[in-house]
């Protein structure tokens, strides 16, 4: 039988000289779930963009059902029956689900948009492929998991036979992942083919029929599900053994370092993002915050970091009240912050790596004397940190915007850790960071913890939270609904039911784990 999709000898060099795909072959059978795994920069995204017509290959051929096809644009790909769901959704927030799905290919009656037919068609698609969603609801009111369904429905409405999903589970809570996988199975049962890009290996092994592994632009292996193991795949991806394991904090008495009491924070729309939160952080521990995106964790980190005002309550760090002081005074008190958006908040894109390293140290005599920058010292400092954190960069004078995600994150982590903080705020430290750099960042965080920092961590990746956290709390709609003093026995499923608001821990149990 002819394979459904074949890519033969795909080669792509970007104008900047990056050789992203080196004669890549990919064969996808009919109605299978085919995963493509690999580190950041391995060339997965480039290959997918070529298959969806966003990028043009320098060489190679794409065949669909044995027929060579040419994909000059996404439009051509859609016409050929290829659909793609990107990590960043392209949905109009105020439009309903049905409006978003039909946008561009609207059913009409005369001059009018035929709303009734649009809603019925979308509803029928949703029922058929087990993608339940309220077709009349505005997309902005839907949780991320359902927004993703809308994206999938968009592709199905345009009659996609091959669906490319770019890291679809990165934004989902565990239960939502289960629902997504159910939908994926229903899609393949009905003859659709799924190309699944991911880097969380347990999930990949669970859902895929075949797994292709890419490394540094090459296709390095094709493994059927039956033969796939996590360790084996990780070794193929990175090219060496990877130990994604962090030692726990040593038990023992730890002194209270940071006390958050009665904290209430408003979000951008003036509603309570966090209401009445109490928690104590101790030296030498990592406290993980699990929550589905949009349940107040971003606002909490912004507020403690000084980027958002606190409505009521107080934050005290090492005996100093930092509730309402500017960021520099918080940093003087011993706070450091690895923000969730390394590009917008964590770094200055046009500035050099060296400048980014000292951006938080401009009061420091080492780098600034008599109001003038000591360029020599700044450069030496940068060289030292680049070496220490093995940042892959041409030199301290390279603009930080030219670095890959993982290396940019290493710069931010290096800067924040170099001040030996008492309290370290960490949001999504390895979002979009590859396995090798993830391993490195995790170990650095553990080292900082062992040196006596209190770390408040949040991440969309539950396995990351579970691997790093010594204590964990779960936020749902801005309130702590569960807290665990011991994380060794915790499972993603337990956390998931609290994260989605299905359950709430009894008050006394929660209290005990919060002090």
């Amino acid at each position: 039988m002819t394979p459904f999709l074949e890519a033969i000898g795909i080669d792509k060099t970007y104008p900047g000289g990056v050789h992203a795909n080196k004669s890549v072959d990919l064969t996808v059978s009919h109605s299978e779930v085919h995963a493509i795994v690999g580190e950041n920069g391995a060339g997965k995204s480039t290959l997918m963009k070529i298959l969806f017509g966003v990028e043009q290959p320098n060489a190679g051929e794409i065949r669909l059902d044995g027929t060579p096809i040419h994909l000059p644009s996404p439009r051509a790909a859609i016409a050929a029956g290829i659909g793609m769901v990107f990590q960043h959704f392209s949905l109009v927030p105020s439009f309903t689900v049905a409006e978003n799905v039909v946008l561009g290919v609207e059913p009409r009656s005369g001059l009018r948009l035929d709303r009734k037919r649009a809603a019925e068609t979308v509803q029928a698609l949703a029922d058929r492929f087990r993608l339940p969603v309220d077709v009349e609801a505005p997309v902005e009111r839907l949780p991320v998991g359902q927004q993703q369904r809308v994206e999938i429905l968009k592709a199905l409405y345009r009659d996609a036979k091959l669906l490319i999903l770019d890291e679809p589970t990165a934004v989902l809570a565990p239960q939502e992942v289960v629902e997504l996988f159910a939908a994926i199975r229903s899609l393949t049962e009905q003859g659709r083919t799924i190309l699944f890009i991911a880097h969380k290996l347990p999930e990949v092994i669970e859902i895929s029929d075949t797994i292709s592994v890419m490394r540094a632009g090459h296709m390095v292996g094709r493994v059927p599900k039956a033969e796939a193991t996590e360790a084996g795949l990780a070794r193929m991806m990175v090219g060496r053994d990877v130990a994604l394991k962090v030692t726990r904090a040593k038990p023992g008495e730890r002194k209270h370092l940071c006390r958050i009491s009665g904290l209430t924070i408003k979000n951008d729309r003036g509603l309570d993002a966090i209401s009445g939160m109490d928690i104590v952080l101790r030296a030498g521990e990592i406290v993980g915050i699990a929550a589905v995106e949009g349940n107040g964790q971003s606002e909490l980190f912004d507020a403690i970091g000084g980027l958002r005002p606190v409505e009521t309550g107080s934050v005290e760090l090492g005996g100093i009240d930092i509730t309402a002081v500017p960021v520099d005074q918080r940093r003087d008190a011993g706070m450091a912050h690895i923000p969730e958006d390394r590009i917008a908040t964590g770094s200055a894109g046009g500035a050099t790596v060296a400048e980014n390293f000292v951006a938080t140290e401009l009061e420091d005599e080492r780098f600034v004397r008599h109001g003038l920058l000591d360029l020599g010292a700044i450069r030496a400092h940068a060289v030292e940190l680049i070496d220490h954190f093995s940042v892959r960069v041409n030199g301290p004078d390279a603009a930080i915007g030219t670095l890959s995600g993982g290396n940019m994150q290493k710069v931010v982590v290096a800067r924040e850790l170099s001040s030996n903080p008492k309290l370290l705020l960490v949001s999504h430290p390895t979002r979009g960071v590859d396995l090798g750099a993830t391993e490195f960042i995790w170990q650095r965080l553990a080292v900082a913890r062992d040196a006596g920092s209190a770390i408040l961590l949040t991440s969309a990746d539950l396995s990351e939270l579970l691997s790093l956290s010594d204590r964990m709390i779960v936020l749902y709609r801005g309130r702590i609904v569960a807290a665990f003093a011991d994380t060794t026995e915790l499972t993603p499923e337990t956390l998931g039911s609290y994260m989605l608001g299905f359950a709430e821990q009894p008050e006394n149990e929660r209290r005990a784990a919060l002090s």
Partner: protein
Amino acid sequence: MNAIIETILSAAFVAAVIRTTTPVLFASLGGLLSDLVGSLNVALEGMMLIGALTSVIVSAYAPWYVGVLAGIAVGGMLGALMALFHLRFKADVILVGFAVNIVAAGGTVTVLNYATGGDKGTSINLPSKAIPALDLSFLNAIPGIGPVLTQMFSGHSYLTWLAAFLVFAIWYFLYRTPEGLRFRAVGEYPAAAEAAGISPNRLRTYGLIASGALAGLGGAQLAMFNFVGFTRDMTAGRGFIALGAVLLGRRHPVGTAIAAVLFGAFEALSIALPGILPQVPGEVIHSIPFVVTVLALMLSSRRRIAA
């Protein structure tokens, strides 16, 4: 005080409000279209001014409707020009808009100078035409309220009725047609429209052309009906007030129309008040519409933050 209330409640005042609202309403609807598609058009003021002068000059040598069409055309062309600079040459849309305003302020005086043979203030010696008024005096026949209705609604420019119709037509376009859906999608989240195969820049070009054409129409109404003839700087901030109406009206056609009527009412009041309150300096009274615009925008944005 009683005199003021009496004035406001009179049928003549309603007629005055309709009259002062019409040019602002056209410009507001234009501003709405370009704003909704994502290119805020700050050049409404300049487009109105150029539209006004063009229609006056053309109507001196052609029938009145040709003058109006010329105003529309020149506004549309200015919109296309803005689109060219903003979308093709990637200039900031606000800066391009201000450039148009500055060109309009100086350029109209220069052109007026040539067209009138030396007059830099008004077109008084150009035999420009007026837009005919629509006579609805048959309403008089309605018993009881007939005369009042006539006083309110008869004798307005043809374009006034066109403006009222356009409020509905634009609403229908935006909220009932597939093209309107695409229009709003581009304004709210261009990436989504692009992913759906819609070209944001093409729709933005249409939006800017339509907004220029409507501003030009507003200018024609101003210089061929509200006043007959062109005076330098005669738009006197109406284009900016129109932008205010778009924002105050929550970027909805009906809301925008209501906001335009509100501003029209204060303008009518500022015309009526000097007769009633001679002790208040005219400058203070004439600043009322602008002060109201600023206050209204402050209040509305405050409510939005609180909401």
